[in-house]
């Protein structure tokens, strides 16, 4: 096309440029002069970002301006249910990452045990069941005074007791009765429950250390308290239990057998003395 001649006789031209983010210089073409420059606006763009745990910088692409930055909404977070392990470990955790409004919470009600006091008895008791959170003190009451009557009355604090049943008839000498006193008993009493006619001469007896205030006839001598025994022999009969009154019986192979140590006692009538099978025997040892 023919260009209009401008000043200096040069043809004129029009130029169009697009603005950027840096300086641009518009120069005429060779041999021409610029009549008009049309500047188009700098291109713009919109960018979208999502929140993260790190700082973000939103920058436009090269040669562009940001017209807008769209920030997506934060995802909503959620708490998982609270768990309590068998070892008592409480775990509270975020189940889903995201925004948690102030005051967001989860709760778990533990099974509780209120304050209580347990009094010892002959039966086993559960003071606090497994898996319970105590909301008050759990106390074990003192042993009722009636329970310690033997120790109180006799002045012995080292006490052992038990019971046993033999599977076969056993001679007295062959059945040591174990105790855990750790010393020679000062008092040992053996009880036999209902011989049921199984034995004419069944076992029962007591051993007393003469340190206790029970005088025995004669002067006890001998090792292992063999002659410091008091025995009651009894047999079933229509008239009931017959026995000698508690007295001092001189030890001999046919009347009384006693042998004591710091861990066991043998006691009973030797010769005819047997522990019956199937009969329950009880004993108490004190020192």
């Amino acid at each position, binding site marked *: 096309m023919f260009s209009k001649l401008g000043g200096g006789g040069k043809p004129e031209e029009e130029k169009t440029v697009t603005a950027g983010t840096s300086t641009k210089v518009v120069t005429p073409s060779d041999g021409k002069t610029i009549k008009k420059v049309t500047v188009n606006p700098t291109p713009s763009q919109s960018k979208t970002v999502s929140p993260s745990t790190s700082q973000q910088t939103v920058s436009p692409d090269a040669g562009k301006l940001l017209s807008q930055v769209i920030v997506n909404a934060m995802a909503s977070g959620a708490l998982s249910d609270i768990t309590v392990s068998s070892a008592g470990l409480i775990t509270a955790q975020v189940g889903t990452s995201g925004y948690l409004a102030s005051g967001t919470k989860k709760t778990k009600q533990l099974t509780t045990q209120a304050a209580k006091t347990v009094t010892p008895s002959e039966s086993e008791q559960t003071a606090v069941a497994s898996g319970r959170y105590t909301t008050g003190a759990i106390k074990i009451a003192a042993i009722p005074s009636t329970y310690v009557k033997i120790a109180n009355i006799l002045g012995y604090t080292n006490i*052992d*007791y*038990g*019971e*046993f*049943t*033999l*599977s*076969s*008839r*056993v001679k007295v000498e062959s*059945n040591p009765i*174990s105790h*855990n006193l750790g010393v020679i008993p000062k008092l040992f009493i053996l009880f036999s429950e209902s011989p049921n006619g199984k034995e*004419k001469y069944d076992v029962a007896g007591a051993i007393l250390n003469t340190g206790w*205030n*029970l*005088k*025995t*006839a004669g002067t006890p001598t001998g090792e292992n308290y063999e002659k410091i025994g008091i025995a009651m022999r009894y047999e079933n009969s229509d008239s009931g239990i017959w026995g*000698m*009154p508690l*007295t*001092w*019986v001189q030890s*001999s*192979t*046919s*009347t009384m057998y006693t042998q004591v140590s710091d*861990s066991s006692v043998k006691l009973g009538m030797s*010769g*005819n003395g047997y522990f019956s*099978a*199937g009969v329950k025997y009880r004993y108490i040892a004190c020192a």
Partner: protein
Amino acid sequence: MFYKYVLDGIIVKVGTSISIPTEFIEITLEEKSHLESVIDAKPADTLESVYRLSAKTEQYEPYQRTYEETVVWYVEQVNSGEMTLDEVPDDYRSEVEAQVNPTEPDPEQAVVDSIMQEVSSYGY
């Protein structure tokens, strides 16, 4: 604590104690009750056999009597009146007689009364 005492494969006894010696075996109350029920149903010993409670089977099994156990059996028979001393076989009679008739007699009532009087004089 509940226990059983086993010796040479035989359950000798079961029982209860505050603490048990190391040679005893701790068992549960249920096991103890079971063994006690087995003991309650023990078969009667015979002249030929004594029944012992096997630790392996937890049942009574017959064992041949030893000489001493045979003497015991005859002593029981004589004491219960099931047989007379003269009916005891010769091999066992002298032993049986010694146990049926102890060499040391029981104290007579007069002796007992004398001892009781002496004891009471001490003021206890």
